[in-house]
C-alpha cells in the first residue's frame, strides 16, 4: 500500500493542473493561518473613519471595509478558515465513518447489509434543518454542533457510495482468491476491499468539500451556523449580496475566494483520481 501511494504521488506530481490546485489550497490554508499577523486590522475591530470604503492598496484596508467599517481582508481570511475547517473536518468524518460502514455492509451482504442500509435510509429521511434545530435546542448554539450535524448527514451518502463500489468488486476473482487463501472478513475488507474502492471515494470526498461549504453557508444564513461577529465565506457572501449595488467588493472578494477554493478542490480531486486509478487502465 505504501509503494502504491508512492506511485500515486509520483503521478500526481506530473500533473501540472492538479499540482497548481494543490498549491492554491495549501497557499490559502497558510494565508488564513498567517492572516492575523499580516494584517494590522482585526476581523472584528471597527474603523469608523472608513465605513464601506473601496479596496485600495495604499490605504490600511486592502480589500476595503464593510458597512460597519470592519476590514474585509481580515474577515475574508477568517471566513475562509472557518469554511475550510468545516468542509475538511466534516468530509474527513464522513469519509472515515462512511468507508467503514459502507465496505462492511457491502462485503458482508445478506441480512447484515439489509439492516445497515435500512438504518441509513431512516437517518437520511430526517430533514436536516429539523435535525439541526433539534440539536441547537438541546445543546445550545455552537460551532461544533455545525461540524456534528453536517458530518452526521455527509457520511450517509458516502456509505452508500462505498457500498455500491464494494458490491461491484465483491464478486471479482481476487476477492474470491483471498477467501480461498484463508483470509478472514476483517482482513479482506481492510486489505482488499477498501484499497480498491478508495479511488472513486476520495474523489467524491474532494467534491463534497465544496458541497459542505455551501451547506454551511446555508445553515449560517438561517441563523443556525456561524454567527456574528464570526464569519464564514457563506455569511460574507450573503452579506455582500445585499450590498451588491452600493459596494460590489463586499460580494466579489469573498465570492472570488470561494470560487478559487472550489475550483482548486475540484481540479485537485480530478488529479487525485487519475493518480490513484492508474492501475486500472
Amino acid at each position, binding site marked *: 500500500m505504501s509503494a*502504491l501511494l508512492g506511485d500515486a504521488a509520483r503521478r500526481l506530481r506530473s500533473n501540472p493542473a492538479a499540482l497548481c490546485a494543490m498549491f492554491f489550497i495549501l497557499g490559502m490554508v497558510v494565508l488564513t493561518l498567517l492572516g492575523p499577523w499580516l494584517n494590522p486590522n482585526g476581523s472584528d475591530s471597527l474603523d469608523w473613519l472608513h465605513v464601506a470604503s473601496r479596496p485600495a492598496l495604499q490605504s490600511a484596508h486592502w480589500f476595503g471595509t464593510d458597512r460597519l467599517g470592519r476590514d474585509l481582508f481580515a474577515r475574508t481570511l477568517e471566513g475562509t478558515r472557518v469554511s475550510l475547517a468545516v468542509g475538511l473536518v466534516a468530509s474527513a468524518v464522513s469519509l472515515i465513518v462512511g468507508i467503514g460502514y459502507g465496505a462492511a455492509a457491502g462485503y458482508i451482504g445478506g441480512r447484515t447489509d439489509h439492516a445497515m442500509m435500512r438504518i441509513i435510509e431512516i437517518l437520511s429521511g430526517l430533514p436536516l434543518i429539523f435535525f439541526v434545530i433539534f440539536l441547537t435546542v438541546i445543546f445550545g448554539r455552537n460551532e461544533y454542533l455545525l461540524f456534528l450535524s453536517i458530518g452526521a448527514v455527509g457520511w450517509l451518502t458516502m456509505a452508500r457510495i462505498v457500498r455500491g463500489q464494494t458490491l461491484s468488486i465483491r464478486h471479482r*476473482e481476487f476477492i474470491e482468491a483471498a477467501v*480461498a*487463501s*484463508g483470509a478472514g472478513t476483517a482482513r479482506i475488507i481492510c486489505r482488499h476491499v477498501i484499497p480498491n474502492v478508495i479511488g472513486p471515494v476520495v474523489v467524491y470526498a474532494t467534491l463534497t468539500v465544496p458541497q459542505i461549504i455551501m451547506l454551511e453557508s446555508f445553515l449560517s444564513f438561517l441563523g443556525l451556523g456561524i454567527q456574528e461577529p464570526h464569519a464564514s465565506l457563506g455569511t460574507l457572501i450573503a452579506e455582500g449580496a445585499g450590498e451588491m449595488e452600493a459596494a460590489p467588493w463586499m460580494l466579489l472578494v469573498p465570492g472570488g475566494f470561494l470560487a478559487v477554493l472550489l475550483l482548486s478542490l475540484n481540479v485537485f480531486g480530478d488529479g487525485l483520481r487519475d493518480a490513484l486509478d492508474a492501475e486500472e487502465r
Partner: protein
Amino acid sequence: MNDAVAVTDALLRVRDLRVEFGGRAVLREVSFDLFAGETLGLVGESGSGKSTLARAVLRLLRASRGSVAWRGRDLLACDSRTLRALRRDLQIVFQDPLASLDPRMTIGETIAEPLRIFELALDEPARAGRVAGMLERVGLAAAMAGRYPHEFSGGQCQRVGIARAMILSPALLICDEPVSSLDASIQGQIVNLLRDLQADNNTAMLFISHNLAVVRHLSHRILVMYSGRLVEMAPRDALFDRPIHPYTRALLAAVPSPWAPQPQPAATAVPASLPSATGCSYRERCRYAAAICAATEPPLEEVVPGHFAACHRARELMT
C-alpha cells in the same frame, strides 16, 4: 510423473454434491474421490457446472446438499473458523490471471498474503525470502516482487497466481481453467510448471479445462460433465481410446486439428428446447437416443472396471 497412484484412503471424497441457484440445480449429485498426488481432469462445456463444482468443493459458494470430506472431515459441515484453518491445504488457481490478483497489491504482497495469514511467526525478512524463492520457483525474477499485476502479461500473472496458491505447499490444488485465457505458446509453460510443482509437493490436483488435449496431457483420471452431472469417469487412456458416453465421443470428435480432416459435427447442434425434467439431459443432442432415454435419467455405473458412464446404452455402444 508416477502414473500409478497408490490406492489409499481418498484425500477428498465428494458425495452427492448438489448446488442450486434460485431453485435451478446447476450441479446434481456429483460424487468422486481424489487421492494424494493424483491429477483428476474435469472437462465439459461452459455452463456444465465445472467451475461451480470447484467452488462448491472449496465452499466458496454454498452447496444445497451432499458432503465434501477432506481427510475424513466434512468441509460443508464445519464451522467457519475450522474451515479457514483447513484452507491452508486447499488452494485454487483461477481462470482469469489478471482478475484474480488484487490490482492494488504488489505481486510480492499478493504472494506473501497466505504467509501472513498462516505463518504468523515469520518475520518480515524471512517472509520476503520465502516470496523471493517462490517467485524464482515459478520462473519470475525475485526483483519483480515490487511490481503491480498490470505490469505483467497474462502468462506471468498466472505464474503469480500459482505462486500464491503453492507457497504453503497445499495438499490439494484446484485449477479452474488455468490456461484457457493464455496463448498457445504460453499454455505449455504453465502446464509444465504446474506439473513440476505438483511433483515437488505430491499435491493432489483437480484440473478443470475445456481443452481436452491439455487435460489428456496431465491427468491420471478424467471426469466428464454435462449439464451439471458427471456423465463419464475413467482413467485417462481408457477415456481417450475407448470413450463410452455419446457426449464424450462428440467432444473428442469436435476438436479441430491442422493435420486432420475437418471435424464432423457429431451431435445435433442445438436442443430444440430446454432440457426436460425427466430422462437423460443429453438425449436431445444424442444420435443414439432411445425411448428409455426420455423416461429415466441413467445413473453413473461402472461399465468396465474403473470406467464409469451414465448412459442407458453404454454396453451396446461398447461393442
